[in-house]
């Protein structure tokens, strides 16, 4: 209980996303109730329900959800009206049809939100159209009420602390790169010292997955907001794919480190440390680049991998690896491959961020 109160208290501040979302939504729901009463609407309850359903913490999220809700309602009500007009007199057909649509509604719930709303609205319009004296006109009422509810919700999203997902893109990109870097740092220290740091590694991996999921949501919402160009939307989508690949590579790196089961080969320890430090430096520079278009320091040169490979080659030529078990050599090869792939993905991420800012080269 104390934890819950602490959490609630912690978010009870005007710059909290939760607090702002709650205030914004509460005002919209109250406005919807007031509008339903002052306009004396039929089924005015649909106004606040629409508001409750479409409100999301960001403007883009509310636009996306509101649009789907309106589209689904118009299509579903249209279908319901059509069915009531053509089959309304044949109760033996229309009632089983309404029941079937009700089941289809749940069937679609996890597949496609717009189709779910289409089926739900058609069911509601048919059932109420059969019960209420208004008949098929109930469909028009549903459309009207949903449109007013959506307008109130969108109005609140635009006017009250508008939380543009687009405005937080820099912060999101910086945040995800920082969590990647934190995870890599831990992996590197586990590899270099040979210590078992599995619990801490799992914790940072959860941070990475959380941050990536949040990043994905923000990217989608930002793409729905007005003012973003098509090429910027494409760059966002490509950047997201790059981030997911980095996550895969870090997961794979963690497996390699777990399998290595000891410290780095003494002959490689210094160069491995340098290589990992260079990779971290790339992450850190990119974090800064995500926040400021022109960081004060230049981008780190990507010579660490070729230098490391050159060193491996010369060590191999001098027979340093002859006595090293093959499994261990395999782990080292896999480690190099992973670091190289992470470097390539970081380069890709740099290009995507550049495109997002200035368009394609």
């Amino acid at each position: 209980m104390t934890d819950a109160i602490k959490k609630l208290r912690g978010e009870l501040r005007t710059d909290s996303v939760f607090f702002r979302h709650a205030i914004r939504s509460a005002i919209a729901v109250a406005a919807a109730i007031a509008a339903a009463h002052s306009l004396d609407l039929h089924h005015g309850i649909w106004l606040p329900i629409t508001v409750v359903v479409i409100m999301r913490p960001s403007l883009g999220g509310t636009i996306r959800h509101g649009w789907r809700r309106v589209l689904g309602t118009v299509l579903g009500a249209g279908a319901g009206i059509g069915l009531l007009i053509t089959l309304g007199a044949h109760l033996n057909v229309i009632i089983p049809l309404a029941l079937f649509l009700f089941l289809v509604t749940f069937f679609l719930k996890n597949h496609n939100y717009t189709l779910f709303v289409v089926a739900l609205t058609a069911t509601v319009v048919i059932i109420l159209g059969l019960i209420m004296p208004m008949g098929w006109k109930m469909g028009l009422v549903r459309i009207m009420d949903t449109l007013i509810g959506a307008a109130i919700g969108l109005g609140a999203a635009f006017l009250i602390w508008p939380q543009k997902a687009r405005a937080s893109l820099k912060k999101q990109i910086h945040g995800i790169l920082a969590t990647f870097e934190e995870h890599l740092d831990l992996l590197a220290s586990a590899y270099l010292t040979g210590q078992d740091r599995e619990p801490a590694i799992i914790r940072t991996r959860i941070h990475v997955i959380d941050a990536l999921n949040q990043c994905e949501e923000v990217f989608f919402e930002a793409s729905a907001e007005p003012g973003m160009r098509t090429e910027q939307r494409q760059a966002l989508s490509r950047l997201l794919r790059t981030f997911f690949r980095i996550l895969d590579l870090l997961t794979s790196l963690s497996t390699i480190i777990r399998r290595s089961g000891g410290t780095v080969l003494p002959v490689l320890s210094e160069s491995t440390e340098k290589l990992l430090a260079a990779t971290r430096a790339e992450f850190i520079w990119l974090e800064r680049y995500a926040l400021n278009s022109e960081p004060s320091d230049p981008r780190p040169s990507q010579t660490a991998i070729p230098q490391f490979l050159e060193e491996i080659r010369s060590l191999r030529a001098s027979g340093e690896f002859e006595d090293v078990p093959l499994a261990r050599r395999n782990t080292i090869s896999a480690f190099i491959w992973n670091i190289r792939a992470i470097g390539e993905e970081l380069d890709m991420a740099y290009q995507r961020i550049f495109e997002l800012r200035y368009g394609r080269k």
Partner: protein
Amino acid sequence: MHYLIRGFYKKIIHPVDPAFFMTGYALKSVLACVAALFAGMGLQVPNALLQWGVFGAFIVMLSRAGDSYRERQRVALRVIFISALLVPLSTLVGNTDLLREAYVFLLAFFAFFGAVLGLPAMITGLGILLLNLFALGDPDTLSAGGDRALLVMMGGVIAYGVNFFILPVYPRRILRKAGSSALTDLGDYFRVVAESIEEKHSLEAVDKFRDRARKSVRRYREIMEAMNMDPMAGLDRNEGPTALYAILVRMLTAVINLNQNSRFDKASPLYDGVRQAFSALAVDATVSFERLAQNLSGGETPDPAPMDRAVDELENRLLELGAYKRGDAVREEFLEIWGIIHALRNLAQELETLGHLRIGGRA
């Protein structure tokens, strides 16, 4: 499951499985609402009030959240009792102009702010808000509100009974089955990837199996989402449905990596040797996958050793080919094949982790 039924299940029912689960839940919801309606009629409740029993049942069926059976019970009970407490007040306040808006503002604020405490709290808050919106939209006296509250409680308790005692759903049991199906699909995908090295399957066929495995893993996630389960719960304890989901995703990634690594030159002097080694590996790995799938559906405890042994054998076979000492070009190819070994080792590691995973029983 009998292998003939399993084949039928995999081809026909499996692809639409989660939607069937949702439709089943819809039928159960209809049953709960109808039962609440008949109970009201049986108690000779006036027609104007009959809908409140149905509302109570509906809100309970709608507010399903929590990643365990107990937590879902708790959420349902909270929705029933808090709603029943607030409905009389909402019914009365609905009559007064400015007070109504102020009241609904507070109610909506708490419902949305509850998201700070997680998904179950948010679902509880929104369920209560929806029910009270119905009451606010149809204002009346306090005593009429009291009658409504009693009926909401009756409907809610009926839905609770239907949901948890008459036709209970055990989320983890369903997820174990979905996990077992996903694992079987991953095993099939792995088998065709391994066999494609022997040219037994075309690239299109391999991609078809990849898509099936991908859909199967996604289905597992969809079922979790359909049950409003917290996707992060249990991830740090190597237990629970989320941990299984994380491993399934990693395994899928591992097999996709393996597939990408296993396209090497057929003209290579190493090709024949590797091809034979993979043939043996495909069989042993399939056994490992099958055993793990059986374990998830409640069968014997798995032994990840066959997969590990098979990878050892593949490694030894490659060593025997002596590629490392056959010039630079062959050595490069040899290193490429080591990439496969590494991908396989990753996969074996994930299989082992999966063997130690605790999904839990009834809850």
